[in-house]
């Protein structure tokens, strides 16, 4: 039986020569994201800003969003967002927080229900109050920072600090790249986005660690190899694994995206992007960046002082 090889054996892709382009591309992306974020912001979901979400399904036929919009103005709940949601008979209705505390939210929801009751079935409602939403924001920020930090510490203990820094930069890169997705697509940024973000962080770190592991191994084996050559060798020799795992993960996510239903589609689409970005960043960012963190022939040096003094390390390597 002939086996499928997506990546041919013994690839010799010069990742280190591609490095400036990759860095430039990533930098450009970061700037675009930052500008886009500052200009347009995110479409923050009700999890983070409070408000109400109602999913409606027509009792018969397709939904008339335009008509529904005019009808809902009579509910006087301020600006109402309507959007078709996964099918012509499904509509998602969203509006912001209402004055009058808890009773105000309830009264508004009752008004909306009363207006649509005749020809729509209410499939789902979510009301998130302001205290909960601000806590969710806090929790999410803490979660992302904490997980990056925890992994940083783990890598620092298991490898050397340069690896930890490299992995962190790659991870931050992935986080911003996923934000690009949210800024560009205007997809709802909610609590499940945070879950997607943390999952991608986990995935990308996994990928990065596999390559780092190989770099470390090669550093021990080929003590005199030039750093660029060594990194290229390490990335190339893990390339098949990187691609195959990315493929299986991508395939699983693709199934979720197409068949998992509308509720988790935003979640899976951002993770699809995340897997691509995470895979790219471990080969094109995380590994090459070690050069800038002082990786030389002979490694970061046997002692940490040599790592901080490149000349000393070089001298030792020549000796």
């Amino acid at each position, binding site marked *: *039986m002939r*086996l*499928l090889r997506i990546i041919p054996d013994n690839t010799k892709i010069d990742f280190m020569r591609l490095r400036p382009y990759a860095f430039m591309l990533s930098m450009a992306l970061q700037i675009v994201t930052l500008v886009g974020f500052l200009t347009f912001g995110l479409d923050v979901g009700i999890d983070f800003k409070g408000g109400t979400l109602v*999913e409606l399904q027509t009792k018969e036929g397709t939904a008339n969003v335009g008509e529904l919009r005019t009808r809902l103005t009579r509910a006087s709940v301020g600006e109402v967002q309507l959007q078709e949601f996964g099918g012509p008979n499904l509509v998602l209705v969203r509006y912001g927080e209402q004055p009058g505390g*808890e009773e105000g939210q*309830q009264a508004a929801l*009752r008004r909306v229900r009363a207006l649509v009751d005749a020809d729509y*079935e*209410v*499939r*789902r409602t*979510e*009301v*998130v*109050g302001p*205290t*909960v939403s601000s806590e*969710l924001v806090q*929790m999410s920020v803490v*979660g992302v920072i*904490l997980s990056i930090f*925890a*992994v940083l510490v*783990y890598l620092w203990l298991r490898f050397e600090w340069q690896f930890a820094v490299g992995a962190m930069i790659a991870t931050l890169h992935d986080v911003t790249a996923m934000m690009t997705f949210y800024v560009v697509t205007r997809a709802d940024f909610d*609590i*499940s986005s945070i*879950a997607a973000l*943390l*999952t991608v962080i*986990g*995935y990308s*770190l*996994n*990928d990065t*660690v*596999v390559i780092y*592991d*190989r770099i470390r191994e090669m550093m021990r084996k080929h003590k005199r190899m030039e750093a660029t050559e060594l990194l290229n060798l390490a990335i190339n020799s*893990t390339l098949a*694994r990187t691609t*195959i*795992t990315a*493929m*299986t*993960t*991508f*395939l*699983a*996510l*693709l*199934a*979720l995206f197409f*068949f*998992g*239903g509308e*509720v*988790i589609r935003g*979640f*899976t689409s951002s*993770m699809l992007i995340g897997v691509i970005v995470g895979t790219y960043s471990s080969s094109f960012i995380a590994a090459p960046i070690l050069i800038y963190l002082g990786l030389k022939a002979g490694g970061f040096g046997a002692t940490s002082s040599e790592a901080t003094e490149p000349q000393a390390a070089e001298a030792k390597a020549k000796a």
Partner: protein
Amino acid sequence: MLSFTRWKATLILMTAFVVIMLAAPNVLPQSWVDRLPRAMRTHMTLGLDLQGGVHLLLQVDANDVRRVQLENLRDDVRRVLRDSRIQVQGLGFQGNAVVARLREGQNGDLALTELRKIPQMIGGAFSTSGQYDAEVSRSGDTFTVTATEAGIRDKVSRAVTQSIEVIRRRIDATGTTEPIIQRQGLDRILLQVPGAKNPEEIKKFIGDVAKLEFRLVDQSMRVEEAIASRPPADSVILYEEVKEGNRVVQQVPYLIQRRAIVTGEDLIDAQAAFNAQQAEWVINFRFNASGGRKFAQATTENVNRPFAIILDNKVISAPVIREPILGGSGQISGRFTAESSATLALLLRAGALPAPLTFVEERTVGASLGQDSITAGTNAALIGSAFVVVFMFATYGLFGLFANIAVLVNVLMMFGLLSLIGATLTLPGIAGVVLTVGMAVDSNVLIFERIREEAHSGRSVMASIDGGFTKAMGTIMDANITQLITSVILFYLGTGPVKGFALTLGLGIITTMFTAITFTRYLVVLWLRWFKPVRIPL
């Protein structure tokens, strides 16, 4: 590395088998499950997003708890000083403290000694917390009794515990099956009612404090006078709301004594009934012995005077006592409908909440959406797994088959562990399972790629396989631990469905490490032993 002792192999297979069997009760018919010993009836529950239902997050009103705590403190101060015959010039609140100023010439030292008896150890007299719920300080003739933050926190925490009990009684009384009622954080309660359609139906039963009080009407002053000037120190003005439909059309004021004769705590029964004579809905109630005694005494002493029945600081009715009520039972009337009397009777039976609750989050999922999500989740899981299985087989052939068997075992073990801890399976949780299938093969990919490399560098079959497993091991560990760290954090910080996702992801990583390190290797070793291959089909 490649030799498996018999007991080791048995242990691996047994572990996998036992863990997988934990998932069995999920798919066995109910009649079989009922015959199993209780400890073996492990199963997952479907999350609200899959079976439909109402999810509410309630918050105990900490400010109200604080206010009540301060009022109690003031009453304590007043009682203590009165009992020691110390005269007070002024008594009032200041922030979180009660401030008392003594008249000139009073015994300040005595006052300090007596006031110092007020603070209670948090957690009861035998507690080791070392913290008190109040602090007493003196400056000249002014005494300050401050409610400590620790004390208020303790009260809030206890209010949550009591509220959970009351809510459980109320929900149980409505005949709802298997509600989930949990404490969340310091002052929150999570309430999930599977199968419920309308949150309003549930809120009707838990939104009201339902504090019932019987108090005397203060007749020392006309109520209009009290509104115009000031009510006596021992009385307050409360209103009766006259409603038309849901609209309050009139508010009738009453001057009512602060002290309650009897409260709802002394009720042992309350039932809605139709009073045929008056042609209206009423609530028949019965007091316990001490409540009945107190009520009998008060009604005997106050014949021909009015008393008020008060619910949550609103007057329901204020009838005149025609004759002493000695039997310990009575009737409340107050413009009830059939429904409102039934609801109130239920609330009275279940008891009052210690503090008002607010709803800070509410999510409802209709049963049809839940069913759709189950179908979608199942389809996605099957199709996703099929993708991965086919891809792995195409890439690694026989070894891909090994990996696929390992992944199957992996997924079954995941369901076993989820059943063991009685986890709730949510749609994001299913997504976590599917994602795990995609990522779990990674360990196998790492091993197989290593074996390939070893084989290409000209080693023997045995040496390649041995080297592949050994060298991949460290990488698998490092890679999975970093991922485990993020899922643990996600689990601790996440709520609801996100937690479910993190849980499946985390358990998936653990089972992945088990299957990759032991199970795949066992399969490969069996293959080596039985077929004695001369080359590796990779």
